[in-house]
């Protein structure tokens, strides 16, 4: 008789269960208070930077998102890295040629903060087409840490999404897709300069409202109507409903323009898109995967 040994261990990422005890109002209030400490300066392009312009932030952000997606990073890594990047650029004038180094460094840090198996310096350097060296990345890491005052526990929109979802009268099955869409909106916002000064709670709320609208989610009562939902969430984040509405609209128009760009892009690089679609088939981390 032949005996076979099965090895059931696989290289899966171990995650802790969501602790529902943390989804309470006390935590939410603390986060609302804490998020203000991690806001970048809204106009650092004008006040701090000499070489770096908004367009370059978009370029580096797009690249970072691509790397995060390809490496299947946790969803929070990209927005967190962008928060580090913006906070760094808020205080430190940076050369254009070092912006990618900074972007890689921020991913390096964010990945270490959020992932059980973080990105390696070597891999990140490969993604820069080896234009930077691992040793430089590590020195940049130290510099970034100093400039960020070693405070990496930024509050991100992701932290709020769970809280909001817990408050909505939505069936568990819809929650998953709603979460995915909201997370995609959050990532999209992180690539856009207009949201730099926007508090994470606002981005999260706007993303959730936009996702609910986009998915045509309905509830038995009218609590999920755009108006009621906006009103409700604006209360939760202690903000003005009009503010939240304009944030939501901004997100929707950003999505629209991204989709348009993506379409143009896909015509020019048809073959490349096919590859990308295969990769993204299960997780709509890319706006192109959202059907509205």
């Amino acid at each position, binding site marked *: 008789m032949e005996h076979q040994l099965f090895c059931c261990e696989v290289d899966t990422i171990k995650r802790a269960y969501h602790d529902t005890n943390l989804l309470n109002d006390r935590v939410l209030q603390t*986060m609302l208070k804490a998020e203000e400490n991690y806001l970048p300066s809204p106009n650092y392009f004008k006040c701090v930077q000499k070489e770096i312009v908004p367009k370059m932030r978009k370029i580096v952000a797009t690249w970072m998102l*691509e790397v995060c997606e390809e490496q299947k990073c946790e969803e929070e890594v990209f927005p967190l890295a962008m928060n580090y990047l913006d906070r760094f650029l808020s205080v430190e004038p940076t050369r254009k040629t070092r912006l990618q180094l900074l972007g890689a460094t921020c991913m390096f840090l964010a990945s270490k903060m959020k992932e059980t198996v973080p990105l390696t310096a070597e891999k990140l350097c490969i993604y820069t087409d080896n234009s930077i060296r691992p040793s430089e990345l590590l020195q940049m890491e130290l510099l970034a840490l100093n400039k960020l*005052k070693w405070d990496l526990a930024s509050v991100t929109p992701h932290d709020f999404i769970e809280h909001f979802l817990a408050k909505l009268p939505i069936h568990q099955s819809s929650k998953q897709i709603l979460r995915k869409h909201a997370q995609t909106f959050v990532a999209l916002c992180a690539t856009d300069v207009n949201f730099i000064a926007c508090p994470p709670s606002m981005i999260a709320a706007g993303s959730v409202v936009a996702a609910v609208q986009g998915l045509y989610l309905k509830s038995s009562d009218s609590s999920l109507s755009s108006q009621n939902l906006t009103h409700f969430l604006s209360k939760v984040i202690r903000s003005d409903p009009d503010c939240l509405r304009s944030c939501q609209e901004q997100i929707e128009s950003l999505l629209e323009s991204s989709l348009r760009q993506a379409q143009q892009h896909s015509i020019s690089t048809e073959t490349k898109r096919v590859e990308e679609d295969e990769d993204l088939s299960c997780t709509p981390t890319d706006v192109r995967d959202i059907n509205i």
Partner: protein
Amino acid sequence: MSDVRLSSASPTLERMGARLSDQPKPSACRNLFGPVDHEELKKDFQRHMKATEDAAADAWNFDFSAHTPRAGGRFRWEALDISAVPGFYSRSARRKGSNVNICSPGNNHNEINVDLNGNHDCLVTEETAETPESPGDQRKRPACVDSSCHSKRAHICVEEVTRTPRKPKKPRRHPSPTTT
């Protein structure tokens, strides 16, 4: 032991294995803004490190490059015998075992000296915030020696080991891992 724990916070070569399947696609590997001037970058890093060290020296009135206390600050530094401090300060001292602890081994690096795994431990100067007056605390503390320490903790510990302790009077704070 402490080596293992330290590395859990930063990607080591061994840990790359779990991501090996996701090799970078050529399309995403690109240089966005032109070539980096490595020499200039190196100089700038050195300048920043110098500034950081100066700030630390001012904050602690301690010259970390010369390992000597400076006069006229808020701290009074005194040398302690190694036997007078808890064992974990000396247990994993890698460089050399000196009896007088004021010149803590492994700290005389002005250069940025970080290994490829992101471990900064070879140049870390650690002060514990509870007892800033005690020079015995200077020895690099192996982050979480005891086995009860989970990797999450180890993660935090490494990040706490800062070169530039900023707020000496602040009680040791364990940053919550992440705001969830």
